[in-house]
């Protein structure tokens, strides 16, 4: 039929991990050396949660490979001036020239010292979305490890655009870097904006479709009728940023409008800190000698340590404790005699008492009866007391969950939301049990592959947590080098400002990543303004598009002294680059990655193992495999030995040496791409099969993946908590309260008063604040009038585009356009009529920060006071994308400390004005 000859084709196994919902398995058809088709990997049916299928984005990878705008050779900038309006003047150079130049600079940096005079690393690196670039960057992590300290804090949207509060609090409370419902077992989900059907990936879409067949009811609470709301049983159009009110009211209903026995009293009493007694200063009452938190033993009528065997702690009530201490900030001891105390549960109940559905109705702009009904349905479906057998183990069965989406679980109010939904889970015993609210993976604790193993007993009967130091001795103040414990790792001050984010390899990228950018331009009062890094690596990311106030970010970025961008096509970020390196893309390069077990977004497998991304075709032009590039950088910088040691230690997928096997690479000589991955294949299969099987690269080229069973019971943290006798640190956030007070003291001692609003987040039981009002006040503070910006603007994800790095792909544009609102401004039909806007008219959406223009999509499924701008567009340099003229919310959102919460996150919501510019043609 076509020019391709029959008989010269094969299907090559691969994976797609372009977005965090992956990895998913697929196959690539290669005919006469040309990649022509993508298909699921049907060999994975029955083992992959979506039966070996991949989502729409993967089908765009053919066009991605053959995109005529690809950078085909290394390039060097010839125009020394950088800026949006400066033509970089890129000229082609050879790989030798490019690598020698980069290595030369790196060696010079090493000679001067890996850190600058402020203590910050001289080299910075930014990678995109949620760790997914790691699955395409080959052995680059080994090179980064060999290098030493690096600043990863210049974000490309992390914090602002990810589920930030969920990350940090989720992992803290139940080893849940991200959270999902146990979809295969759940019966009832209240979803506050979680856009599962847009961004949950193939696994979530498949499972939720199956769940609908089983009769699940999902209530989608969000300002517009997203694709997820479309696939839900009910849509509740809540006013933006009022979700905490809804959830507080749900807690109120469960606690005050139902008999106590209808809740999971046993779970609350034994698996949470609900019975812990709270003293007059808001800290736990503790045994004076042991300092263990006290509970009231209802058997003996006395206050005893929480871990007293055979004690039956009272869940609620007010008691009087003869002798106890509170431990306040900086270890201050407050002694008490005959002190009245409430249990933590009672404190929570009292706090939630005013938050009735009638009250919430006013805040949320919803009927009280809807809020009450949803709370009642949640309880009715919770099956308190029921059990289920999982692989021979009898576990609680609680098929209800509350899930949160972006703009709910990040920014102001996010702490309140994540707290509420986790507390709602505990009230019915649905935390980390079949059917309920589950964590998926961890990133701030280790080991990443099995979150259960990260659970270690800590203080007060909870899991050990590694918060950043807030005591006088160890708190990191960039302005005070004398007292550094270790040198600051990043310019976003995550160790200083965000104790809960810890200091693991991922913490930097999770800290307030927009602060790194902001501080480069203007540091807050008394804070030493960071010096730019000497060299900045950029890979699979485009902060100039995917951040807030992209105009400002672009300007700040233009001052980066030397930028090395791994470049697929020209884009808005590599517009500021000094060197462009064309990396071999998805279908052209090789890598082995872990798959299975449990992971975000809804990747709970019954198997775990590894999968190979096999190169289907030769790279276009002079593009090279990242593993080759990493090896060259290591060699030319004199770090080859350290680089191979890092690979041997497991920088890329698994350690190459283990019990009964040794596939380590000789650090003294060079190894090519296939050698490295062959060793990784062998080590991984030896590891997973516990030495029974060793499979090399050739086997993987044929089969694509290697899996061993993963216990279903290991999806749930509850058995581990039970086994270790630990409680979930809920509802009362005593530790965080104390940490907050310490942080406040440290900040004020150092003369920093600009984080004071954020410090208010450190409430032991969160209370309602007028969150929508914060946006109005910020607007007014910037000199605007609220009436001039009468509408809310939010964004939403699109499966065709989100995190696919694929705005330059025509196929995605074409199929994405079938989804209403893509590339447009979604506006309520009545509101549009009032503004004289017809379907397809050009409109301007303006905020105090900027303006964006696009075509209007009139829909019924959106609040009249809200407009929605899907995905992230506004490209001005990326070929193909720049000609689309699609609007973007990122032009409108301010980069603002005022709109940053205590965890360092922000939200994609802004007050805007809309006006018609012209007709549809």
């Amino acid at each position, binding site marked *: 039929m*076509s020019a391709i000859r029959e008989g010269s084709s094969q299907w090559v196994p691969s994976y797609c991990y372009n977005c965090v919902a992956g990895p998913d398995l697929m196959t690539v058809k290669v005919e006469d050396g040309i990649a022509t088709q993508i298909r699921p990997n049907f060999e994975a049916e029955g083992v992959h949660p979506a039966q070996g*299928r991949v*989502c729409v984005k993967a089908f765009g990878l053919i066009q991605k490979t053959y995109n005529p705008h690809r950078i085909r050779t290394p390039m060097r900038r010839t125009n020394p001036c950088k800026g949006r309006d400066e033509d970089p003047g890129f000229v082609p150079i050879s790989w030798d020239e490019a690598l020698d130049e980069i290595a030369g600079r790196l060696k010079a940096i090493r000679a001067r010292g890996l850190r600058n005079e402020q203590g910050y690393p001289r080299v910075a690196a930014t990678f995109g979305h949620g760790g997914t670039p790691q699955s395409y960057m080959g052995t680059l992590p080994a090179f980064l490890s060999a290098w030493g300290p690096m600043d990863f804090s210049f974000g490309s949207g992390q914090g602002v655009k990810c589920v930030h509060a969920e990350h940090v609090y989720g992992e803290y409370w139940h080893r849940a870097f991200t959270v999902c419902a146990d979809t295969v077992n759940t019966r009832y989900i209240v979803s506050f904006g979680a856009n599962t059907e847009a961004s949950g990936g193939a696994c979530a879409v498949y499972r939720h479709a199956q769940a609908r067949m089983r009769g699940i009811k999902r209530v989608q609470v969000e300002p517009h009728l997203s694709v997820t709301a479309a696939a839900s049983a009910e849509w509740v159009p809540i006013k933006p940023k009022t979700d905490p009110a809804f959830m507080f009211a749900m807690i109120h209903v469960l606690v005050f409008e139902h008999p106590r026995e209808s809740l999971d009293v046993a779970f609350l009493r034994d698996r949470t800190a609900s019975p812990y007694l709270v003293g007059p200063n808001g800290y736990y009452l503790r045994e004076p000698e042991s300092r263990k938190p006290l509970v009231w033993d209802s058997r003996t009528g006395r206050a005893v340590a929480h871990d007293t065997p055979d004690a039956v702690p009272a869940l609620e009530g007010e008691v009087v404790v003869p002798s106890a201490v509170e431990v306040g900030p900086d270890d201050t001891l407050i002694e008490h005699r005959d002190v009245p105390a409430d249990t933590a549960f009672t404190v929570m109940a009292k706090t939630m008492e005013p938050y009735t559905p009638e009250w919430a109705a006013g805040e949320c702009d919803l009927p009280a009866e809807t809020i009450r009904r949803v709370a009642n349905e949640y309880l009715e479906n919770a099956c308190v007391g029921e059990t289920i057998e999982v692989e021979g183990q009898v576990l609680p069965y609680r098929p209800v969950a509350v899930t949160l989406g972006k703009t709910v679980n990040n920014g102001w109010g996010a702490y309140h939301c994540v707290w509420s939904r986790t507390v709602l889970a505990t009230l019915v015993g649905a935390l980390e049990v079949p059917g309920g609210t589950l964590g998926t993976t961890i990133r701030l604790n280790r080991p990443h592959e099995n979150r259960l193993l990260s659970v270690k007993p800590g203080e007060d009967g909870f899991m050990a947590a590694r918060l950043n130091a807030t005591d006088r001795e160890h708190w990191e103040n960039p302005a005070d080098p004398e007292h550094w414990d270790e040198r600051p790792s990043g310019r976003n001050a995550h160790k200083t400002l965000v104790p809960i984010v810890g200091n693991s390899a991922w913490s930097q990228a999770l800290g307030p990543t927009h602060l790194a950018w902001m501080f480069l331009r203007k540091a807050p009062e008394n804070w030493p303004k960071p010096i730019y890094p000497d060299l900045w690596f950029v890979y699979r990311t485009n902060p100039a598009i995917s951040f807030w106030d992209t105009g400002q970010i672009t300007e700040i970025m233009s001052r980066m002294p030397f930028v090395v961008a791994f470049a697929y096509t020209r884009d808005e970020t590599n517009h500021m680059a000094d060197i462009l390196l064309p990396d071999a893309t998805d279908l052209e390069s090789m890598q082995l990655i872990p798959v299975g077990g449990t992971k975000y977004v809804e990747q709970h497998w019954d198997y775990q193992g590894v999968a190979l991304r096999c190169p289907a075709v030769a790279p276009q032009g002079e593009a090279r495999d990242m593993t080759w590039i990493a090896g060259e950088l290591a060699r030319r910088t004199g770090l080859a030995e350290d680089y191979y040691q890092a690979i041997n230690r497991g920088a890329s997928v698994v350690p190459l040496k283990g019990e009964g096997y040794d596939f380590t690479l000789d650090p003294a000589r060079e190894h090519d791409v296939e050698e490295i991955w062959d060793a990784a294949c062998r080590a991984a299969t030896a590891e997973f099969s516990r030495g029974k099987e060793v499979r090399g690269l050739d086997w993987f080229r044929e089969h694509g993946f290697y899996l061993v069973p993963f216990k279903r019971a290991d999806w749930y943290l509850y058995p581990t908590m039970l086994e270790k006798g630990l409680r979930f640190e809920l509802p009362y956030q005593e530790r965080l309260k104390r940490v907050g007070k310490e942080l406040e003291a440290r900040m004020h001692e150092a003369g920093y008063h600009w984080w004071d609003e954020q410090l208010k987040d450190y409430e032991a039981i969160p209370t309602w604040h007028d969150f929508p009002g914060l946006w109005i006040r910020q607007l007014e503070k910037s000199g605007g009038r609220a009436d001039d910006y009468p509408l809310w603007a939010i964004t939403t994800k699109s*499966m065709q585009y989100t995190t696919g790095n694929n705005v330059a792909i025509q*196929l995605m544009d074409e199929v994405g356009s079938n989804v209403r609102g893509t590339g447009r401004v979604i506006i309520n039909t009545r509101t549009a009529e009032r503004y004289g806007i017809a379907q397809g008219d050009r409109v301007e959406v303006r905020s105090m920060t900027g303006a964006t223009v696009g075509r209007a999509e009139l829909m019924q499924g959106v609040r009249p006071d809200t407009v929605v701008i899907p995905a992230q567009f506004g490209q001005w340099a990326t070929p193909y994308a720049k000609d689309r003229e699609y609007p973007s919310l990122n032009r409108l959102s301010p980069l603002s400390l005022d709109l940053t919460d205590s965890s360092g996150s922000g939200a994609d919501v802004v007050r805007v004005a809309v006006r018609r510019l012209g007709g549809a043609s």
Partner: protein
Amino acid sequence: MTRYAMVADLRKCVGCQTCTAACKVSNATFPGVQWRKVLDMEVGEYPDVQRVFVPTGCQHCDEPACVEVCPSTASQKRDDGIVTIDYDMCIGCGYCTLACPYDARSIVREATWAYAEGPTEVEKARFDPRMLGVAQKCTFCVDVIDTGVAQGLTPGVHPDATPACVNSCIAGALAFGDLDDPGSNVAHLLRENRHFRMNEDAGTGPGFYYLWDGEQSEQEEVTP
């Protein structure tokens, strides 16, 4: 007899366009041509709104309007229900595109490419000049079905005998099979679920069924 048909479960479809893209990649259609596509439909008025995603394409009708009007007999209906187009016979008059009540057909007169710069390597390799100036539409991946059946595979069950859209659907919303076989997947689905066909009043007897609910008795057991 054999009567191939498609069943789309609207309860499952999420409008992701994976099938749209899979079809395009599998069949190398020109930009703008979508043999399979998913429509995004709103019903109701704020706040009482629903949003439905509807996969569509050629419905391979029992009495196809396109076959009736085709002046050259290029459009034909096989015994197994699949409506085919003989690209070498078609004169490209466009009449069938107007007769089809499902807007399933199109004609590409001039080759167009994804990028203004001209055809990419893969577009050049897969370009079939026979496809210019003639009617085209979903074929139920007839070549794949024929090859698969010849190898003893069952369409709709074995991926190598199944249309690309069905293979790719991540919600499992699409099913394909032989309606005349009471044991087939599609026969089961239609027996066990309430369904409709679109634009039935056009009278062509479409071979594309949409599931919208289970049987009455299943729903009655459900709690709030």
